[in-house]
């Protein structure tokens, strides 16, 4: 079965380009324009990997990742490929707990390699306790979870 990938990005142009490129590689690709819709689409069908932008209005990438971890059974095991133009991308990735991230603008080949690695290794994100939606500065409400691997 071909792996399925969900792209969540508010920048429709970038999402479309990525979708075209990933489709050309033989993946089944879906696109969501923000975190909320991305979560909805993931609930309908859990993708094999999530390609996630960080800065989006409404629900940012890290917030989306948090909700996946907190709310929806099964979604916490989806490996996340983060990309962003932020200087602090490595730090955000560390907080989201994913080893897969890439800064904008990126080489398509590198992104494809990253997606392939994510599909092979399937390292599930392990968010840091304080990385919660709107949670900067508040007390952690759940203990840090051990790093888990999907079967």
């Amino acid at each position, binding site marked *: 079965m071909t792996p399925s990938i969900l792209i969540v990005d508010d920048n429709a*142009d970038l999402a479309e380009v990525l979708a075209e490129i990933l489709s050309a590689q033989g993946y089944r690709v879906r696109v969501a324009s923000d975190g909320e819709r991305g979560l909805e689409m993931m609930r309908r069908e859990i993708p094999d990997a999530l390609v996630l932008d960080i*800065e989006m209005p409404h629900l940012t990438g890290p917030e989306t990742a948090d909700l996946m971890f907190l709310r929806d059974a099964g979604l916490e095991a989806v490996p996340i490929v983060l990309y962003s*133009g932020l*200087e602090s991308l490595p730090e*955000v990735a560390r907080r989201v707990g994913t080893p897969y991230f890439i*800064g*904008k603008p990126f080489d398509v080949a590198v992104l494809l390699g990253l997606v392939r690695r994510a599909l092979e290794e399937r390292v599930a994100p392990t968010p840091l306790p304080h990385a919660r939606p709107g949670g900067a500065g508040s007390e952690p409400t759940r203990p840090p979870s051990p790093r888990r691997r999907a079967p």
Partner: protein
Amino acid sequence: MRSGRFSQVHLRTLLLAFTALLGVLVVAAAASIVRTSMVVSRSVRAAEELTEQITRTHELERILREHQRLGNLQAATGDPRVAEMRAQLAADLFASSREVDLGSDEPEAPPEIAQMKADIASYLAERDALFRRQLPLADYLAGVRPSIERALSSVAAVRRHQERTLRRARADARRALEVQRAVAVISAFLVLCGLAAVSLGASRLVVRPLLALDAAVHRFRRGDTDVSVALGRVTEVADLAGSFNEMVEMIVRQRREQLTFLAGVAHDMRNPLAVLKAGVEALVLAPSTITPERLARIDRQVDGLSRMVGDLLDAARIEAGNLALELEDVDLRDTARSMVDLYAATTSAHELVILAGVDPVIVHGDPLRLEQVIGNLLSNAIKYSPSGGRVEVSVAMEEGWAVLTIADEGLGIPPAEIPTLFLPFRRHALTRELVPGVGLGLSITRRIVEAHGGHIDVQSAPGAGSVFRVRLPLAHSTEAAQGADEITLQGRELEPLT
């Protein structure tokens, strides 16, 4: 660190206090030395006078004995020359006894002197009386002896009294000298203490803060930005230190804002660049997939980048004060209509509506810049209504103002972000991990509106859409722009909206 304003003193007051302290000390020292000198010199003078008096008393005693001797000689010989010499000596005796005194310090002549004078007088009278009685010599001599002995002993009493007084005067002079020496030493010590206090005070209150400031200036020049200096207690020095602290703060803040600005610009350019790079690479990987849509997508990114560069130039011009407005009467309804038409063509998901009255809404402004304002607000309204919806543009008049509102049904703005919405990027973009790409558009929009004498505000809540409202003075009531066909935007600090 920061001592209260009330405990501060002016430099002039401080100097005055220092001078007064030293002055009082010096004057007090001089006065006490002069005073003790007077006491010393008076005591010395009294002693000198008394010494002289004692000499006179000795002289009186000598004359008295001489008189006695001559009196006896006269009685023995009956020589008229001796009688003459004795009479002369008696006159000397009177004169000399009158001169004998105890010195000017004594308030009144003591009884000893009066007694002495009386005894001398009675001796002379006694001798004359005895002489006249023509007694035999032995009887005469025996008769005179008691009175001369009385006179001599009372002269001795006067001398003893004078000697006692002299000893007292000398003791007084010695004591006064000791006191004077002590006063001189104590005065010198006090003046030295005063000098030490003044130099210590000047060092603590003025010199040390200035040295600290100097050190801070040097540290700041070497690149250390954590150089806040204590204000200190002297107003002028504190003002200087305060100005330095403010200057450092301002420079540090400006540097941070510049870095934020650069980081923001770089960040915003990465989005279109990412699309361009990926889009071009996709076409390179599969040249057969070149379609008009894909080329249009690339074109859009290039347009976006061009707009950003334009905004960047505008921002630079505003900062440099070089953005000139070419003012003319503009019907804001026309400008709004043409911009709505332009933007309606770029989206199919949004319904762009214009509401305007029948009366023209004339403002005195730069038509291109006003288009830029409306365009920025429209593109934001579209951008932040990702699921489509209605965008309503209205132009109205309200008490001398032209009011343009652009209302969307989009995502809205969190209350915390509203105050910094019109600032170029975010102040804390480097410390916050997420920087929504606000860009330069709104800060330029606000600058342009304010250069037209108007202002801009926003009402918004998350999920409830946003209403941006621009108020510009109507042409006939324009005060800000009246009489000027060209005004220049000044690069001044934008304050957060309240």
